[in-house]
């Protein structure tokens, strides 16, 4: 399929950037490549084609999630130069890894075969291990990389064992065959199958950072370079949820009773751990890591819905969460480079330094906390109502309580930037393209908050 091919070619071209001396144009090249891929991708809308001997199918679900991932990756690349500063010795290679990891994300949201799921997860994860350790001399970055790597590899083992057990039970890796088998055998318990499902569940819960498999998240998010953290928190999480929902709704929904309990408990623990621990975080990156854990808890609710509502809900939430966290992390980095602190007090008096930035901070925080008239509100609204439709009232109550706890810490940067005096009086200057991009993200947040119908149903 054209999207994967376009991304791969872009990746390879980027790779050659430093050895054939065109490193200067590699960011441009990546953007062009990603744009091309986005265009290709959107052409698949409503076509439902299957590729590579039924290894992948590009349905609307895949198109939607793929587009989200690619757009976010494009935003990230625009900011990449600023983030790494002069230390861009490996710029072409890094861009190449980023683009190729998006390839993995595309595979993860459009697979119809467990082999492709595995490959997609690994393409994404291995790229992430590299990206986490990008700052070679920085101990935090080192630690993040090894933690991510060891635990990621460990969880891959469980994912693989799960896939193998399912293969053992069903004699196939193909999702349609597996789902037929599950449908036929949903009345009696097949332990091989059930264990396989649960182990895959574990593997994917690790990837989406749900408790108790979330421990890597805060450390990795804090240690990794900020822009890479933004990438993990947005593209990584969204692609993982894309894969998660696809598998469990397509294949395992007939035996939902056997895994819904696990998801419920995990969702509750995840939400509470994420939100409560985030309250006391001084370091903003760490706070957002916990908040992303909490978001994973909310998104797990969508997996419980019995019908296609969940898919729409998770897509909308992904978009809302993705754009808001992207701008949040970008702003954190800007603040961090300017004031030299990772803590919320770095935002003090932001409104006097750069009004646009303060405004964007406020909008993205409001959206993340789910205040109405921002995209985040409807994200939560869709998620919660899909869970309510499926009868999980208590779960939704707890989720609502959690989203209110969340508001508390999301307001920290907003309060700092509007109601506190700044430590320094420097004005923060941004390149016009960066300002435009940030404003674009904020406008998207508001627009989706007013017209949630803009996101098409899938």
């Amino acid at each position: 399929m054209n999207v994967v091919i376009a991304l791969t070619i872009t990746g390879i071209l980027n790779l050659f950037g430093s050895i054939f001396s065109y490193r200067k144009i590699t960011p441009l090249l990546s953007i062009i490549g990603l744009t091309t891929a986005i265009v290709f991708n959107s052409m698949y809308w409503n076509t439902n084609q299957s590729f590579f001997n039924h290894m992948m199918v590009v349905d609307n679900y895949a198109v939607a999630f793929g587009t989200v991932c690619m757009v976010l990756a494009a935003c990230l690349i625009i900011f990449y130069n600023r983030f790494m500063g002069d230390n861009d010795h490996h710029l072409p290679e890094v861009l190449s890894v980023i683009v190729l990891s998006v390839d993995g994300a595309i595979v993860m949201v459009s697979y119809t075969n467990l082999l492709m799921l595995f490959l997609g997860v690994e393409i994404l994860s291995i790229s992430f291990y590299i990206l986490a350790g990008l700052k070679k001399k920085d101990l935090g970055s080192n630690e993040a990389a090894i933690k991510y790597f060891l635990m990621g590899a460990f969880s891959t083992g469980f994912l693989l064992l799960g896939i193998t057990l399912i293969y053992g039970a069903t004699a196939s890796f193909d999702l349609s065959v597996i789902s037929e088998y599950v449908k036929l055998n949903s009345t009696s318990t097949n332990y091989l199958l059930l264990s396989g499902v649960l182990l895959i569940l574990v593997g994917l819960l690790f990837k989406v950072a749900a408790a108790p498999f979330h421990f890597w998240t805060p450390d990795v998010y804090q240690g990794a370079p900020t822009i890479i953290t933004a990438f993990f928190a947005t593209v990584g999480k969204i692609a993982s949820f894309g894969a998660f929902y696809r598998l469990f709704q397509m294949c395992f929904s007939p035996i939902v009773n056997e895994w819904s309990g696990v998801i419920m408990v995990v969702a509750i623990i995840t939400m509470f751990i994420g939100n409560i621990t985030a309250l006391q975080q001084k370091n903003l990156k760490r706070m957002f890591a916990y908040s992303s854990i909490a978001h994973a808890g909310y998104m797990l609710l969508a997996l419980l819905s019995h019908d296609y509502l969940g898919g729409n809900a998770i897509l909308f939430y992904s978009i809302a969460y993705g754009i808001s966290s992207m701008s949040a992390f970008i702003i954190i980095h800007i603040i961090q480079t300017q004031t030299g602190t990772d803590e919320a007090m770095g935002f003090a008096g932001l409104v006097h330094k750069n009004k646009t930035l303060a405004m964007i901070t406020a909008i993205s925080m409001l959206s993340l906390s789910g205040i109405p008239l921002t995209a985040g509100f409807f994200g939560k609204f869709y998620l919660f109502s899909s869970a309510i439709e499926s009868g999980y009232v208590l779960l939704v109550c707890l989720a609502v309580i959690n989203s209110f706890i969340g508001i508390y810490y999301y307001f920290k940067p907003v309060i700092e930037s509007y109601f506190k005096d700044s430590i320094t009086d420097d004005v923060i200057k941004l390149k016009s393209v960066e300002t435009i991009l940030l404003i674009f993200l904020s406008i998207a947040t508001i627009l989706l908050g007013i017209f949630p119908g803009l996101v098409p149903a899938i």
Partner: protein
Amino acid sequence: MNSTPIDFFPIVIQFFVAAGFVGITMFATHFIGPKLNTRKKLKPFESGVQSVGNARQPFAIKYFLTAILFVLFDVEVIFLYPYAVNFLELGMSGLITMLLFMGLLLCGLIYVIRSGALDWE
């Protein structure tokens, strides 16, 4: 091709022979030879070159890099096996697919060579 456990017996024998040979030679040399432990003798033997420092130290990164690259490219070869078994049935399209695959590997190789990872000096 009916095989019974007894058909695996030669393998078992071979295993024991192999293990026994290793064990016997190791123990035998220990007991047969005279023991004369001098300072020089206890030093690690490095082809006659004077040994320097602790042996448990990081090896040169060159070895590491080369070894890793070898492993990577070596493992990719396993994809040639299924193709080799079926190449007649797969025909032209199979050939093109395989060429593409090798082409991608070649891109990697070009990168490795041009970025100087294999330069010894």
